[in-house]
């Protein structure tokens, strides 16, 4: 099977802007085309990853780049939308139907808790079971009970991510907080606090995907897609479906564990072969559980692993060099492609103060409603003179 590569990336900062989705989306898309060294007319098909934007948003946004008759399809898989859309590009290229594909993630979201009518049944909303962080918090509470994970270990993850974001011009909050400030920030849903959760916001990120052969002809700095896997949670395997009940007798592996395992197999790599990670820190505890699910540390030891500094930029397994969703915010449709933009920068060696030394491989991971999970593994391409 021929290699598929990311040839160009673009990002509009994540935050809150007095700009339309069309403006921020077209900006990220044009940057990706420029970075790839190609024109809009070179693109054979395009996908928009989005959850909140209305029907036909892909066509509305990308028409701003010029007239076209190519297929433009909107893709939605909750927080994993970007992975699902990138996977469509991979499939389109592998099928031979397309040779050059643009994948754009774009979102504009209101402040505050996400609209519950999208993912909860009316009775769950009426009874007050429609606050997303309450599910993450219940998971954290049980992990603390089972494994002795502490509130300080959870806060240390938020501390790391906020600090990493200071040098990321695409993050919404670029402020370092002390551990004390984080641990004294208001509780949202016990034990998770305000400075430990991500906020919905606006943002856009885009990639140009093509074959390795075409990339060689064009030149530039391609990055190989070693794996791009999307799956949903198995029966009773994830709280954040959001579940109204869970089985007490069947203990299926969670969606991150399942998806990462498939991605490692496709890539022919294991956790020890990946030099840097961008993962779904919807809340700081979530990142701790992901360390365990993607195999960075044994089950139950994620809190200690974080506290020992292994996931700092200078650690053995750097995680969320960009500052993560906690500091970037989560424009749902754009979040995974934003992670991919960061990993590509790391593999190209252009991440500045956030650079992981000599990063050759990287993973991007998202997880959300419906138990939707996507994992993309990228690898630096050796350029032969």
């Amino acid at each position, binding site marked *: 099977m021929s290699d598929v590569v990311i040839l160009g990336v673009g990002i509009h900062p994540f935050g809150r802007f007095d700009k339309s989705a069309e403006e921020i989306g077209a900006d990220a898309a044009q940057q990706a085309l420029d970075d790839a060294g190609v024109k809009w007319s070179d693109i054979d098909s395009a996908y928009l990853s989005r959850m909140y934007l209305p029907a036909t948003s892909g066509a509305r946004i990308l028409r701003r780049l010029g007239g076209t008759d190519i297929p433009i399809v909107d893709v939605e898989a909750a927080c994993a939308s970007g992975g699902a859309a990138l996977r469509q590009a991979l499939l389109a290229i592998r099928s031979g139907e397309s040779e050059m594909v643009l994948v754009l993630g774009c979102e504009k979201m209101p402040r505050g808790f996400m609209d519950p009518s999208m993912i909860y049944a009316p009775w769950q909303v009426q009874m007050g079971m429609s606050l997303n962080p309450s599910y993450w918090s219940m998971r954290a509470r049980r992990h603390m009970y089972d494994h002795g994970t502490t509130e300080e270990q959870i806060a240390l993850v938020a501390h790391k991510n906020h600090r990493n974001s200071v040098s990321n011009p695409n993050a919404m909050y670029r402020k370092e907080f002390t551990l004390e400030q984080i641990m004294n920030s208001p509780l949202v849903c016990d034990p*998770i606090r305000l400075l430990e959760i991500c906020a919905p916001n606006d943002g856009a990120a885009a990639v140009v995907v093509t074959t390795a052969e075409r990339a060689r002809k064009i030149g530039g700095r391609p990055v190989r897609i070693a794996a791009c896997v999307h799956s949903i949670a198995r029966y009773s395997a994830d709280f954040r479906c959001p579940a109204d009940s869970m089985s007490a007798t069947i203990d299926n592996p969670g969606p991150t564990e399942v998806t990462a395992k498939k991605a490692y197999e496709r890539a022919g790599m294991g956790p020890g072969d990946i030099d840097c990670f961008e993962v779904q820190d919807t809340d700081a505890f979530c990142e701790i559980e992901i360390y365990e699910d993607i195999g960075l540390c044994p089950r139950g030891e994620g809190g200690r692993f974080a506290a020992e500094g292994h996931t700092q930029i200078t650690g053995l397994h750097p995680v969320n060099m960009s500052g993560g969703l906690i500091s970037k915010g989560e424009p749902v449709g754009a979040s995974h492609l934003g992670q991919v933009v960061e990993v590509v920068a790391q593999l190209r060696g252009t991440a500045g103060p956030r650079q992981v030394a000599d990063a050759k491989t990287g993973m991007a991971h998202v997880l959300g409603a419906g138990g939707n999970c996507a994992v993309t593994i990228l690898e630096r391409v050796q350029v032969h003179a």
Partner: protein
Amino acid sequence: MSTATDRPLTPIRKGLISEPIDSPEAFRLLGSKCGACGELSIGTNAVCLNCGGSDLSSVRLSPEGILWTFTIVRHAPPGDYRGPKPFVPFGLGLIELPDGVRIMAPLDGDIETFRIGARMRLNLNVLDADSPAPLAAFSFSMIG
């Protein structure tokens, strides 16, 4: 929580609450047990959520269980929340029933007192008690 109303109650989710909803003491939640894989899901379902089998039988779920995990909801939930106004912080938890299912439910009682492992009991919780069409919902509280 509130149970006082003389108007007929409508179950908050069809097939989840045993009818008639005659008294708080007889109040039960319903589940569906799969004849093929044995899994139990809450509510009255036509297909097993685990194996896809259609040999399901309706069961009345145990009114008592153990608190498996919980949180405190400290901000008013978004959307059509029917709880007290103004908003009052409340517990939300997963209660493990001996039937083999953990059920998500609001928790009655002092938010400072919940602990994993506590024995819990099902309550009828009437929402919109003053409206023409009050809803029969449910909650759990600690025993003792």
